[in-house]
């Protein structure tokens, strides 16, 4: 019995060491190409399954006469999200360069060339919360490109294969986005925590962040263009002795239901 246990422990130690070596090896920058090639192997299966699940979800809804309600709901949700973005950008426009705020249409306001991509998969765990999209290097997608949707900022491209790419979303536990609040103008960093969003704000005497204020990218650091909607302040935690104050944010994008995103092709990150 004891010998069986020690064999099992030995096998575990060997396997763990081998997997750790594989992690470190495939993390090397020189391994990015082969890694992307290997990962692309299962992309068709993921794409077909997502298509089937979307179809099955829609088909079931038809049977239960919920399809119309579902599409109405989606349309209204999209309209609502677009209106929220427009409101946020209009509010920010009062303090921003008028050139960037003239149009309400997303692409005009944004002023960048974008590529539409469907979401074909999601992260298997709740920590990374990434999205897999059905566009890759063959369509010009590159590492670090910014990804948005009608409601606001989605994230950045963190991995690319020939036909797919991975988007590190705002709610990824390792995500950090420099942002500012539209009303009070305080700057800080939006931090993903694997679910909710929070913003660490550098306090200024006499300036208070109020719930309902919009949070937009500040462009500091050069990873994101300035002025993309990130979320809305839900609650602000003020502590007199703190060097950094925090705000709980409601994300502008519903990461669980987003199915189509836009990859910004012509913004070059400088950070």
């Amino acid at each position, binding site marked *: 019995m004891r010998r069986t246990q020690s064999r099992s*422990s030995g096998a575990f130690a060997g396997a763990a060491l081998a997997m750790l070596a594989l992690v470190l090896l495939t993390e090397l920058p020189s391994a990015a190409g082969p890694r992307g090639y290997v*990962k692309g192997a*299962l992309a068709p299966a993921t794409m077909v*399954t997502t298509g089937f699940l979307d179809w099955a979800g829609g088909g079931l809804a038809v049977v239960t006469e919920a399809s119309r309600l579902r599409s109405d709901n989606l349309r209204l949700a999209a309209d609502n999200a677009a209106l929220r973005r427009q409101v946020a950008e209009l509010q920010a426009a009062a303090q921003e360069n008028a050139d960037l705020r003239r149009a309400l249409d997303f692409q005009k306001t944004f002023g960048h060339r974008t590529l539409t991509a469907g979401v074909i*998969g999601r*992260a*298997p765990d709740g*920590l990374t919360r990434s999205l897999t999209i059905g566009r890759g290097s063959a369509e010009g997608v590159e590492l670090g490109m910014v990804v948005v949707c009608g409601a606001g900022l989605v994230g950045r491209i963190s991995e690319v294969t020939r036909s797919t790419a991975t988007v590190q979303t705002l709610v990824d536990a390792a995500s950090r986005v420099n942002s500012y609040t539209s009303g009070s103008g305080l700057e800080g960093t939006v931090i993903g925590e694997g679910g909710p969003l929070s913003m660490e704000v550098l306090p200024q005497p006499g300036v208070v962040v109020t719930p309902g204020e919009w949070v937009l990218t500040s462009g500091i650091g050069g990873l994101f263009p300035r002025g993309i909607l990130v979320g809305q302040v839900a609650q602000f935690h003020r502590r007199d002795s703190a060097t950094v104050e925090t705000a709980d944010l409601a994300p502008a994008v519903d990461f669980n239901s987003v199915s189509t995103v836009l990859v910004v092709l012509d913004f070059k990150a400088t950070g």
Partner: protein
Amino acid sequence: MKYLAAAAVLFPAAILQVTLAPRLEVAGAFPNLVLLAVVGWTLVRGAASGLRWAIAGGLLLDLVAPGPLGVHALALAVAAYGVGFLQRSFEPDPWLLPGASGALAAVAYNLVLVALSDLLGHPISILPVLQAWIAPAALYQAALTPLALLVLRRLDRALPRPVVIDW
């Protein structure tokens, strides 16, 4: 035959993990189907078999997940070893063991992912993640593990028993 059975369970589980599972979110958590399979198989066939499923299922998951290869395989291996340890060390309780194993495996699996993320230079604040993701995920896995165990026991009965030579 046993390799075919493993492939028939683990391959769909890995694909469904990135397509179907995130749609099953409850209270901020969604199930990990590969982890369910690995925990269930460890309880059915022991730590050595569970470890093999963990490596195979983890590598499949790594192919569809972001990041370097081996991350999920290592996390699942730790989870399988932990379940094997739990099974060996405590009196098996048919009611408590599956749920406890599912919860323990989910915590171990996620903590390894957090540690590896730190190791690779992407630090994660553990407390918010523990509250927002790991705790609800552990409860979710604990609730589903008995169901997975029922299915895998049927599969186990359909497969030839391995020959065990105990010294």
